[in-house]
């Protein structure tokens, strides 16, 4: 095994060095990039994506993909927005529980269809993507939730908090990231998710309830997308049925994949996913600083996904060759 192969094994190191290079280059081109303001922008941009990415990472590790999360986000955001119109005094904890529950139900529906009928998850969630988006329009009647419909204590959740006035969503997403890390690395369930992803048949033979594990992943993914709906309402102060969460699933998937999570399942880490999302957040903030028009953002994200997929596949190929898996 050469040094290069050893380097490839620590996937987080690769993405970390890309981030460092990117930040250094960006701040040489324009010193404004290294100011507090732009880093504040980075860390305000990522919590929403980060929370969704934690769920998506679990789903991808167990060999599935959920592309309906954007619509789940929109649905829970609309539901909580409509509730705020009725009950402006709804407390933050209660809204968290409500959005988490809404998301959980929708995620479990995805998981149920995938596990019960054994269809590829992307096709199923392509269907539920539209289904949930249609529900958003039906529930809201096509009406937007405005800034003055959302109570003050919810908006301030994304701006400040009791803890050194760090935004509440940042603290909350950090807690979710840490919990996900503990679950994935240090619990039986987490190890079962990895086992299911790397070889479902072997996992089944070993006595792991594959259906239950898959359902759990989809449920958590939906639940976190639902929580992200509350973050969205808090962060942006409006919820539009036609705009909210459209295409966000591709950003999340991009972040998870460039974080080193293999789409063939069974590998990936919370740290890698965090770094992947961080890179996307930095790119998001760096584009205007570097005078690159915002229209290029989507193309850059797309390019990142394709490049990351290709690299991932090359790494897998190399690994297999090393272990003698490929004899061609």
């Amino acid at each position, binding site marked *: 095994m050469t040094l290069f192969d050893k380097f490839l094994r620590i996937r987080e190191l690769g993405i970390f060095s890309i981030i460092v290079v990117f930040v250094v280059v960006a701040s040489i081109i324009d010193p404004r990039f290294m100011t507090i303001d732009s880093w504040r922008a980075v860390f305000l941009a990522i919590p929403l994506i980060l929370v969704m990415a934690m769920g998506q990472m679990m789903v991808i590790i167990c060999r599935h993909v959920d592309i309906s999360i954007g619509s789940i986000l929109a649905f829970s955001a609309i539901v909580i927005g409509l509730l705020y119109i009725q009950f402006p005094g709804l407390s933050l904890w209660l809204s968290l529980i409500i959005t988490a529950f809404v998301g959980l139900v929708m995620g479990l529906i995805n998981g149920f269809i995938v596990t019960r009928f054994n269809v590829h998850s992307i096709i*199923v969630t392509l269907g539920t993507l539209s289904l949930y988006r249609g529900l958003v329009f039906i529930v809201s009647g096509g009406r937007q939730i405005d800034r003055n419909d959302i109570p003050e204590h919810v908006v301030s959740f994304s701006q400040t908090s009791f803890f050194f006035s760090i935004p509440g969503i940042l603290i909350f997403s950090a807690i979710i990231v840490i919990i996900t890390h503990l679950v994935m690395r240090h619990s039986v369930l987490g190890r079962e998710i990895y086992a299911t992803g790397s070889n479902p048949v072997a996992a089944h033979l070993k006595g792991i309830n594959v259906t239950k594990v898959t359902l759990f992943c989809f449920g958590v993914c939906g639940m976190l997308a639902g929580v992200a709906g509350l973050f969205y309402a808090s962060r942006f102060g409006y919820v539009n049925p036609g705009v909210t969460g459209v295409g966000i699933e591709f950003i999340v998937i*991009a972040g998870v994949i460039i974080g080193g999570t293999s789409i063939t399942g069974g590998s990936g880490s919370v740290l890698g996913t965090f770094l992947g999302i961080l890179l996307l957040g930095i790119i998001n903030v760096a584009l205007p600083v570097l005078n690159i028009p915002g229209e290029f953002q989507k193309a850059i*994200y797309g390019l990142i996904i*394709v490049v990351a997929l290709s690299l991932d*596949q090359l790494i897998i190929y190399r690994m297999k060759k090393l272990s003698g898996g490929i004899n061609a």
Partner: protein
Amino acid sequence: MLKKFSIYLSENPTLRYWIVRPEWVAVILLIISIISSIQLSPFFADLAFIMDSATPYVEYGLIAIILTLIIISGEIDLSIASMIALTAVIFGTAYNAGIGMPLSMIIALLSGTLCGLFNGILVTQLKIPSIILTIGTLTLYRGIAQSLASDFSLGGYPSWFIGIDYRYVGIIPIPVIIFTVFAIVVGFFLSSTIYGKQLYLIGTNPQTAKYSGIKVDRIKLLLFTLSGLVCGIAGILTTSRLAVARFNMATGAELEIVLMVMLGGTYIFGGRGNIFGTFVAFWIVVILRAGLNVARIKIESQLTILGAMLIIAIILTNYIYSKSQK
């Protein structure tokens, strides 16, 4: 009666093969949707109206036919909608750059072909699963279209180019004729040529296909390229119909295209399906959309019904195949 019939069927496997087929679900659904639409509004029973409402979906239908071939061979292409937008935007940019209509069309078709080729190379050479790769290229192609066109509508085409959906032969619009001819040609290709049979074998068992001397990778590459080319044609057709090209055209069209293929009884895991089913499913989508519009259900709310239909179609097809053709 039903029990007797099912026993009779189990004694005659050939007959069962022909009767228990997912395509008949599509046909039955088509009849149900026609009847219920006529119940909604008597004006619906007008062939010219149905033909007219079919034209916007012809672009999707053309791609659905190629996608049927791709899914039969065990792969999938979800970047189709983005390729429509990208080729349309490239066509608009090229024409507005003043290089003339024929050259712009060639450039658009060429760019579509290249996009498809790119998908195909990554799938066949790097062995990236097509379902996840085309999710990536979906974002990439749409992003390139957005970078090229920004938020502008690229228009200013000559009048002979605009409005292909208003050119008729009798009461049939030209796009519908294009679609029908294309469906017949591809259907013939799939059912009656050796290459069609090879597609089924590739989808059923790629390993066996490889050992039987079929050039699996080359055929898959060709299919993806073809998909790009047809998306180019669809992009030009859409531009002609709308008279402008925008980066966000055909957003979410993957749903309807995949729905057409799935409703037509093509097996999601490959190896089964045919063009006739997709052709019938095209008309189901057309009539469903037209019927929902006549019933004044909002376009956005229609998404719920389409999404639910996609899931039901997959479940039903899987169920029927598991019963009839083990």
